[in-house]
């Protein structure tokens, strides 16, 4: 699967010209347009997996995309447990990937 942002001139619903926003994900800039969710910006920047599981070290990112699964939790500007799929991206947002070790310790 690839995620991409449709160039607004090609968008059949003819939206107003977009306002660009830039966020950082663990220090790496990602650009999107105002109105996108954090998950949307991250996906369109080409990143599908932004954290890893504790036991097998497998990549995880957006799973349900509608706020139910809590798989896309990230820290936003110092606030933990934000669902990337439910928060609109604001220019300058600093996203930090969350990882808490399992009580028994991580395997991966």
């Amino acid at each position: 699967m690839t995620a991409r942002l449709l160039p607004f001139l090609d968008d059949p619903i003819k939206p107003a010209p977009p306002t660009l926003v830039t966020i950082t994900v663990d220090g790496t800039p990602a650009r999107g347009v105002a109105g996108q969710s954090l998950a949307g910006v991250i996906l369109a920047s080409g990143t599908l997996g932004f954290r890893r599981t504790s036991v097998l070290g497998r990549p995880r990112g957006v799973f349900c995309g509608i706020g139910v699964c809590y798989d896309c939790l990230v820290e936003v500007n110092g606030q933990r447990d934000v669902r990337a799929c439910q928060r609109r991206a604001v220019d300058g947002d600093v996203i930090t990937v969350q990882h808490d070790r399992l009580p028994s310790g991580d395997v991966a």
Partner: protein
Amino acid sequence: MTSDVIIVGAGIIGAACARALASAGVGVTVIDRGTTAGGTSSACEGNLLVSDKGPGHELVLAQYAASLWRSTVTDLREQLGDGFPSVEFDPKGGVVVATTTAGAGSLLEFVAGQRLAGVDARVIDAYEARGLEPDLTARIEAAVYYPEDAQVQPTIATEALMASARLYGARLLENTPVLGLLLDSAGSLIGVTTPAGELLGRRVLVAAGPWSGEVAGLLGVRLPVRPRRGELLVTTRMRQRIFHKVYDADYVGAVGSDDGALQTSSVVESTGSGTVLIGSSRQLVGFDARLRVEVLSEIAAKAIRLFPFLADASVMRSYGGFRPFMPDHLPVISEDPRMPGLWYATGHEGAGIGLSLATAELILDLMLGRPTRIDAAPYSVARASLAPYLEAVA
């Protein structure tokens, strides 16, 4: 198809009984209207507790069960192999905290009785309590440490017991509701009827948790098991900050009460996946599973009283279930003298996960006519305290 025993209910009680019987060579068929661990066994916390039980028959059963869990977990792992998910057996111990002076008085009195009954209950001071649980409230009037308390992941434990039972030869029929008893011309029990046809068996064991009253009704007898609703909150995964099962001393009063109105009492613990489980509530509302925000809000407020840092925790979801409530607070583990061949293993209220293994051993010994390890009479359906509830025959 003929079995020695037909078990109605594929929750942890049915699974544990199936495993005990099948491993002893008894022919077992388990039927459930849904799937394995589809009811209360997957809607609870997986408590293996002695701490919340005062001296009496439930404590005796809990102590018997506590002596079985560790070796059973080892046996299951050896039998099922490393490919089967872990049952997450965690002998973490319990810490009970009183945050008021009145609560402290009743807690210490309760503990004195438990110690006489052989419970390892250690009164600790506030400094020691915060040594065990560094993030505990500073408002500690009394605290007790119970090293014997433990936890399992209840859904996996049920699945593991059922998988083991099947390896011993038990047969499982899911999505197969029981419709009624099958009787011969003399009126003796010879099996059950289901939509898939008749199942023949000399004995029928009802292990349908909170639905046991309904099942008994279908089988023509009255059994006073009622559903008692409970709800829980689950936080997002976090750095481990809670290390034992921690609860407020008023939980014991809620467990033992008869009150049908809402009662909440704080029970907080971490799980193997890094989330925190926050309970608990008790309410007699039939099988009404509607979300009750006022219950969740009361549970959350009380948890913060024990662990102030939880005020900033994120709640990820809530879930609820129904406990099989008995009017005299004891499970029923016996044959029914009103209908020879009809047996019960039900009514464990909130303690069924822990009590399952001991219940299964009692059922096995009783069915085989062997002496039981503990006196089984207190759990008989014919006990005096149940008589008033059995009079009306459905």
